[in-house]
């Protein structure tokens, strides 16, 4: 057999094994991991952007509270009082079924 023929045959010989399900599974597993990583990164960025927006919105409120300390204190106490009443009511509602048993 000539060197030309031998070269052609050696070059045409299959290099990869037959279809391998394990290879496909590995690819899909890695693809899923990459997708999860990208999604987590996107969520983190979205959270950071929302936090920055919230801080930007609260800054003017801080300025107003410094100028009107008395009103801000009254407002804070009123909000705290409403929150306390609401939490007591919620506690009573949660405890009611347990007492009924």
């Amino acid at each position, binding site marked *: 057999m000539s*060197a*030309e023929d*031998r*070269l*052609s*045959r*050696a*070059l*045409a*010989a*299959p*290099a*990869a*094994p*037959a*279809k*391998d*399900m394990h*290879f*496909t599974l*590995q*690819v*899909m597993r*890695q*693809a*899923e991991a*990459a*997708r999860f990583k*990208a999604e987590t990164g996107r969520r983190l960025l979205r959270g950071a952007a929302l936090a920055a927006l919230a801080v930007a919105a609260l800054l003017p409120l801080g300025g107003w509270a410094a100028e009107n300390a008395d009103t801000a204190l009254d407002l804070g106490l009123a909000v705290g009082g409403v929150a306390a009443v609401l939490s007591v009511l919620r506690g009573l509602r949660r405890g009611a079924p347990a007492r009924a048993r």
Partner: protein
Amino acid sequence: MTGDDEARLLADARRGDARAFSRLVDANQQAVRGFLRRFAGHWADADDLAQEAFVTAWAKLSRFEGRSSFRSWVCGVGYRIARDARRSHARAGARDFSWLEEHDDVEAGAPLEDRLAVARAMAALPDDQRAAVALCLSEGFSHAEAAAILDMPLGTVKSHVTRGRERLLKMLESEDER
């Protein structure tokens, strides 16, 4: 797999259907792994690179315009990943041709010693030449397809294939004389 089947699976995969993409991987893994085994030389590296190529293809599927086959496109993605990896890590240092023993002589159609000699000779070719020879003479891609995969002019690919083949032939003959 027919062109219509491929187009349908690609459309489903673009909509995020992982099962459709896994069928595309299944249908094209041999060509991509075969090409990268010949290009990278080290079969374990080559399979890692092929996996990376498919994962990258999945992430960038929206950029695939369909001007070539999916197989050609993934081979191109794999070629660029392998070439960059070789440049940054000098992977060429460790070569392993044990994968050639996977097929016996009858199944492969060529004796193991010839396949080893050609693999060694391939490793000595410059990257672009080796890639063009692997695609056109081993994996059955046309010169035009190889030009698209390697992002090279058609004439350059043709001359890489001709020169690469001549060099392989010379190396095979000189190995016989030893």
